[in-house]
């Protein structure tokens, strides 16, 4: 995982006394925060983590910075431990002000020491946001995006009420213009009764590039999660391969929902592309595969006309923009010609005059259809040329 500065925003309002997560929301939250801190600090030695509690006992009762971003694990864990339950309930106001707390976190991130690396906020919300308006949250999300800050939101309880609002925040922070579909901000909802750290370990928040960690274990984060649990120092190639395949898998999973109808189109294009593709047996084919198929079909279509030209015995043809396939075929054709002309023998020439042999040979080449009228034409021409040459010799 790359270098990152991360602020963890903890909800410590009175709602966190709720026992729907064991032993209580607050303890479940600090367990999860603990795991995130471990994962962040271990993934890169220079990564820093800070902690903010979203309600405080002071007169302001707003967000309070407990630790500014640091790589000192002891300091962070110490702060996580002594987060007290506090906060006053004011009629007409939420227990925590998410938008304001996020701004405090942005400010803390802005003054971080190491300006390299990305900035991230991990936000825990366990109290109902009945008064927070979506507009304010969207505005906060846009501000985050403009400041190049990523945000991960973890919803602990009050799901029905909070999730839509917080999703707006995350969507705004992701931005709609991001056409590559790369989403750096995530929202994770923890169902009641489940240990949050169990959900987080396999969520994109912790797994980062990996999506699903393999054998991550319940306690601490897996240091080599992005390499599928393989130490990249021990076996760099295997680790790289695992990482690439995990990235692909994650991309597939993230697009799976949106790709439902695209996959159907992909199915059609696959049938067009013919059986050359190989992995035709994949039932849950993603649009990525479909794209690959399309690309394959297109490259074949491209190589077709060039191979026709090659068959046309046009040796002076410029091969600059011809792909490998076609170039190889042309080389083959050229070598055949030189063979024919140097030997001048009808024996080898005759072999290529044999239409059955030629169509067989062409059929065995990838992407060449021997029944193609253009190829037939080219073959006929080549034969004529050959006859003319023979006449010249005589």
């Amino acid at each position, binding site marked *: 995982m790359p270098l990152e500065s991360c602020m963890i925003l903890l909800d410590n309002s009175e709602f966190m006394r709720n026992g729907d997560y064991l032993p209580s929301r607050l303890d479940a939250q600090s367990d999860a925060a603990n795991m995130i801190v471990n994962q962040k600090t271990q993934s890169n030695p220079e990564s820093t983590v800070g902690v903010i509690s979203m309600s405080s006992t002071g007169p302001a009762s707003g967000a309070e910075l407990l630790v500014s971003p640091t790589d000192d694990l002891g300091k962070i864990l110490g702060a996580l431990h002594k987060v007290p339950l506090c906060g006053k309930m004011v009629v007409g106001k939420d227990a925590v002000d998410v938008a304001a707390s996020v701004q405090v976190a*942005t400010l803390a991130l802005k003054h971080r020491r190491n*300006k390299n690396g990305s900035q991230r906020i991990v936000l825990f919300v366990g109290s109902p946001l009945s008064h927070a308006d979506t507009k304010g949250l969207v505005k906060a999300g846009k501000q985050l995006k*403009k400041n*190049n800050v990523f945000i991960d939101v973890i919803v602990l309880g009050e799901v029905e009420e909070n999730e839509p609002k917080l999703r707006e925040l995350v969507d705004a922070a992701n*931005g709609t*213009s991001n056409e590559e579909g790369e989403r750096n901000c995530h929202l994770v909802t923890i169902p009641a009764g489940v240990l949050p750290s169990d959900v987080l370990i396999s969520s994109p928040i912790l797994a980062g590039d990996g999506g699903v960690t393999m054998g991550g274990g319940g306690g601490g984060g897996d240091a080599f999660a992005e390499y599928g649990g393989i130490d990249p120092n021990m076996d760099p190639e295997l680790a790289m391969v695992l990482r690439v395949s995990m990235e692909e898998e994650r991309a597939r999973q993230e697009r799976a929902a949106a790709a439902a109808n695209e996959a159907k189109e992909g199915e059609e294009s696959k049938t067009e592309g013919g059986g050359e593709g190989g992995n035709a047996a994949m039932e849950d084919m993603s649009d990525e595969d479909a794209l690959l198929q399309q690309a394959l079909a297109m490259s074949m279509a491209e190589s077709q006309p060039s191979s026709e030209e090659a068959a046309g015995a046009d040796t002076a043809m410029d091969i600059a923009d011809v792909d490998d396939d076609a170039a190889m075929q042309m080389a083959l054709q050229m070598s055949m010609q030189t063979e024919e002309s140097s030997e001048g023998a009808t024996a080898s020439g005759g072999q290529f005059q044999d239409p059955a042999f030629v169509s067989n040979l062409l059929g065995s080449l990838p992407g060449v259809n021997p029944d193609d009228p253009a190829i037939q034409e080219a073959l006929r021409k080549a034969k004529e040329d050959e006859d003319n040459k023979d006449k010249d010799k005589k």
Partner: protein
Amino acid sequence: MMNAATAAGGASEPAPAEDGNSLIDLSTILDKSACYARNENAGFPWGNLFIGDSRLGMRSDADEQLIIHLSFQEFVRVKSIKFNEYNNGADPELNPVKVHIHINRNNLGFEDIEDVDPAQTITLTAADLKESSNPIELYFVKFQRVKSLTFYIDENEGGDITAIGGLRIMGKTVATTNMKDFKKQG
């Protein structure tokens, strides 16, 4: 002592300038770890500005505003700057227009950059952004002891985002001790 140093410098260099330094491209002495940009598109980061290919430029992400903070390894004097258009001017809507320049301000973000007075504000025209046009001269007196420059691109030609093809900062270093000038004694 001073004379000896300049004489030695003049003898070794073919084209001596007064104070031993002429105008140089200051991008060579950037302290890259202290530079940052706000609202940059991750695919088109600020580092692209100094590659020299206008197709590899920098773009803003969420809207047209952009903050580029450049920190130097030592104090410099900045004489002139030159913005180049993105992709040889293929999309003139993305050109920056109003650029505020701040000197030696660290940690400026979009929240507070409007609250501080810039050292200079320049307005770029399409002609200024052409590769061949002359760089824009700054108020040289104000840029005598510069450790960092912050460019705040406030407005562009009307596009959704801003794109810049390249940036050149010309200036000289403030005379500091150059260890190369020390000769072994005896």
